């Protein structure tokens, strides 16, 4: 049995035979993405969009505090530093991880996956599958910062003092949206295709009750 030509339908999870004749999944009839180049280009395009959006997201203020006519603005990094100085370390860490570490990690992971799909490397496809899974699952967590800003702007909404989201909130929310699209449009066959030495194992599933 040649395991290299078996792929998993990303919608209904069934095992499909990957051949040139049919581009439909045999169970749910969703199009299993026909062209690998199309998937590669889509992932790259969404990734570039997200990276471009990440620049205004960091430069513009995410939170504007209007106190008795005075405006004070804070960017994402400024906000984290301010929280750290105030001594709320856990919150500063959560925001740091959610809005700096996670997006950058996603950019790096997707770039790495895209590069290794074109060039032969020593990394095993097993590891790359795991990396893609991590990329997909950490994606939405960067929304925390935008959510917090919006919640604060609703609660601190008085005539004397107001908090409202700045331009960076829009840029950041869109950035998260596009990184998620980028990770979702990455076809798993891009991982397997260039690793001729397949890592597929045939064996019985581990039993546990």
């Amino acid at each position, binding site marked *: 049995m040649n*395991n290299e030509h078996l792929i998993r339908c990303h919608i209904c999870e069934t*095992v499909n035979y990957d051949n040139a004749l049919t581009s439909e999944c045999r169970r*749910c009839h969703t199009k299993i993405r026909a062209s690998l180049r199309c998937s590669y280009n889509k992932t790259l395009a969404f990734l570039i969009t997200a990276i471009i959006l990440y620049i205004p997201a960091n430069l513009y203020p995410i939170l504007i505090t209007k106190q008795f006519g005075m405006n004070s603005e804070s960017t994402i990094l400024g906000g984290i530093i301010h929280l750290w100085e105030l001594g709320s370390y856990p919150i500063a860490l959560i925001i740091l991880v959610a809005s700096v570490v996670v997006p950058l990690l996603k950019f790096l992971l997707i770039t790495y996956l895209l590069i290794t799909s074109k060039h032969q490397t020593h990394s095993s496809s097993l590891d790359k599958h795991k990396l893609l899974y991590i990329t997909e699952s950490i994606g939405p967590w960067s929304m*925390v910062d935008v959510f917090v800003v919006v919640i604060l702007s609703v609660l601190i909404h008085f005539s004397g003092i107001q908090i409202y989201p700045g331009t960076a909130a829009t840029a950041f929310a869109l950035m998260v949206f596009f990184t998620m699209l980028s990770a*979702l449009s990455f076809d798993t066959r891009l991982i397997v295709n260039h690793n001729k030495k397949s890592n597929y*194992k045939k064996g019985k599933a581990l039993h546990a009750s």
Partner: protein
Amino acid sequence: MIKEHELDKLIICKKCHTLYEKVPLTKNEKAFCNECNVLLYQQDADMLNKSLALVITAGISLFIAFNFSIININIQGLEQSLTLTSLFMVLAEHEQYVVGLLFLFIIVIFPISILLSTFVLLFFMKIGKAPYLTKRLLILLAHLKPWNMVDIFFISLLVSMVKLFDIANIELGIAFVAFLFMLILDIIITKNLSFHELWLLHAQTYGYKDE
């Protein structure tokens, strides 16, 4: 070329894409991946009933979460409460339309459509009618799954509460509890409801073979 009924005996792990040959399970047993310990498939005869009950409960908490205040704050006599309507009103007032639109989809439309389509799906599969509709719903749910952000919204609520802790009196609303409840139910439903089983059950219920 491998025959289709042989393909049905195989399963690929969702995390590491290792290929496995399925072994038959008895009641309440689970099969895990050897490489990464992710659940591959499980055997649960009561899955439909259990999930249906959980989905209805989650629907009720969703209704409460959307209609009552989530957090009330009090700063030196000034009061303000966070509800879903006040959230969109404030966003519109500050002209944050893109964020508002994303919020509308992530917090309102996606959770409602996920719960509603899960309910309709389970209901029709239980009475064994409407094969085409249930199939479309199974596909729709697979598309909606990555966009479920109730858990992240709840963490954000906690973070903003800690931020406001020094300057304001915070009072938790009914909807806050409902959100927490919804989050817990969501975790249990995701654990209970395996799409792999649902597709197999779909084929069984409507009596067709993948051939």
